[in-house]
């Protein structure tokens, strides 16, 4: 790791004030940044430490919103009673991420800024193969080589990577907004739009851009509308713990009231009144199944009824030659998440 100069920020504004200069990085937990430095994914001459900013800490309810400070660790978010009760999919996503000791350092602010786990991208410099993220214009070794873990939505010939964050999937499903501070002051970014697919980035003329966060901006926290609907986060992976997702799904389900309504339930059959569902690790951003969400009200909470709804919502998936299985796996994860959120699994 190359050396750098270091300063502790006394305020969030002071931290942001340092970001105008090139090659200045923010450190919070450091679980990503230190590995970026080691691999050569990032290099900084100056590192500003925001870890001491109490103003960015804390989890609290504010009316109809849950506020989570950017410096809350994944374990703090995952085990906080307010999050467990009012944003259960987020709590579950946090606790299914990384390991207990990584979760004690990793912050919810930094987590969504982690970069892809594509093995061609995460190699030590000098890179022995092409990667447009590491060396723009060099090509994509994954598209030509192994890509069974890569995207089924939104990819381009330039890059097929997925965003691996678990919490980001829950934040997108729960309509969270990121509070962001920049040189011009604060603004918010809906977490549904925070990350960009390769296709969205290319359309905006910055093919390798991954988020809407500016280089001189800092995430200070998140606000989520509180939800008393059932929630779940389903993570499918090759080992039971401490592993990135192959696919994942976050869901929030409100069930219809019993008999008497216009869509009166058959005996013993529960129907969905409203649902939100997002897939993870299928694109470079969390993938909300909005077409399914429009169709789900009135749908019985059964695997048989949910499968065709999710299939229709995923009809625009474009798998790569090696990852067709992810379409099926993601469909099943979404169905499982909806069933679990509705209390049927």
């Amino acid at each position, binding site marked *: *790791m*190359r*050396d*750098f*100069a*270091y*300063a*502790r*920020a*006394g*305020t969030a*504004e*002071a931290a942001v*004030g*340092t970001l105008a200069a090139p090659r200045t990085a923010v*450190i919070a*937990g*450091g*679980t990503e940044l*230190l*590995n970026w*430095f*080691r691999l050569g994914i990032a290099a900084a001459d*100056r*590192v*500003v*430490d925001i*870890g001491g900013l109490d103003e960015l800490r804390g989890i609290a309810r504010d009316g109809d919103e849950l506020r989570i400070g950017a410096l809350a660790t994944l374990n703090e978010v995952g085990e906080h009673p307010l999050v467990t009760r009012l944003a259960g999919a987020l709590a579950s996503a946090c606790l299914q991420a*990384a*390991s*207990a*000791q*990584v979760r*004690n*350092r990793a912050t919810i602010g930094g987590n969504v800024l982690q970069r892809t786990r594509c093995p061609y991208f995460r190699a030590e410099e000098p890179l022995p193969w092409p990667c447009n993220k590491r060396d723009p214009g060099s090509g994509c070794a994954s598209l030509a080589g192994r890509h069974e873990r890569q995207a089924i939505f939104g990819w381009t010939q330039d890059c097929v990577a997925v965003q691996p964050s678990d919490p980001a999937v829950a934040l997108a499903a729960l309509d969270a907004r990121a509070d962001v501070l920049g040189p011009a002051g604060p603004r918010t970014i809906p977490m549904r739009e925070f990350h960009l697919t390769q296709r969205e980035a290319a359309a905006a003329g910055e093919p390798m851009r991954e988020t809407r966060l500016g280089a001189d901006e800092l995430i200070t926290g998140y606000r989520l509308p509180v939800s008393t609907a059932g929630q779940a986060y389903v993570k499918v992976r090759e080992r*039971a*713990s*401490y592993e990135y997702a192959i696919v994942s799904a976050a869901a929030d389900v409100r069930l219809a009231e019993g008999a008497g309504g216009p869509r009166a339930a058959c005996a013993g059959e529960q129907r969905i009144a409203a649902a939100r569902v997002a897939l993870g690790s299928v694109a470079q951003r969390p993938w909300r199944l909005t077409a399914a969400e429009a169709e789900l009200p009135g749908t019985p909470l059964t695997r048989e009824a949910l499968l065709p709804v999710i299939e229709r919502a995923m009809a625009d998936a474009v798998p790569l030659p090696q990852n067709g299985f992810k379409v099926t796996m993601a469909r099943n994860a979404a169905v499982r998440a909806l069933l679990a959120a509705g209390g049927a699994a």
Partner: protein
Amino acid sequence: MTLDFARRVEVTLRLNARSRTTVVSPRTTLLDWLRDDIGLTGAKKGCNEGACGTCTVLVDGRRMNGCLTLVVQCEGRSVTTVEGLAGMKGAGEVGGELHPVQRAFADHDAFQCGYCTPGQLMSAVACIAEGHATDDASVREWMSGNICRCSAYPQITAAVLAAAREEAGR
């Protein structure tokens, strides 16, 4: 408002119950500092990327990967390594009575080559203190950040649960 960026930083922290002041390059990880500057080689450098857990230490009582923590991030904090786990034999000297978790690991043959053991022990102490050592499944989930290539997992799980029961009984 401008910040002063420094290439050498003075840090004061507590290490195994003893206060220390040190001057480090900002890039120095807690793991490298412990092993190379202080000479405490209990925490091991396995993967140096947060994947194996053998560098696990406690910072303010919470388990963390020493390889993912900078010394400059430990200002004012209290760091405990495996060397600080056993009872102290005199001022700052190690070698006293084993910690109950260490004894449970020995009693249950919870290691073979021993390379992961310092990290397993620190993680186990925290896992028990957090209240996560309740049953097999919970221990396996909350100890998953510590890899054992000899695959002593059944014995490690048994040791953690035994130490947790002993702690609860006291």
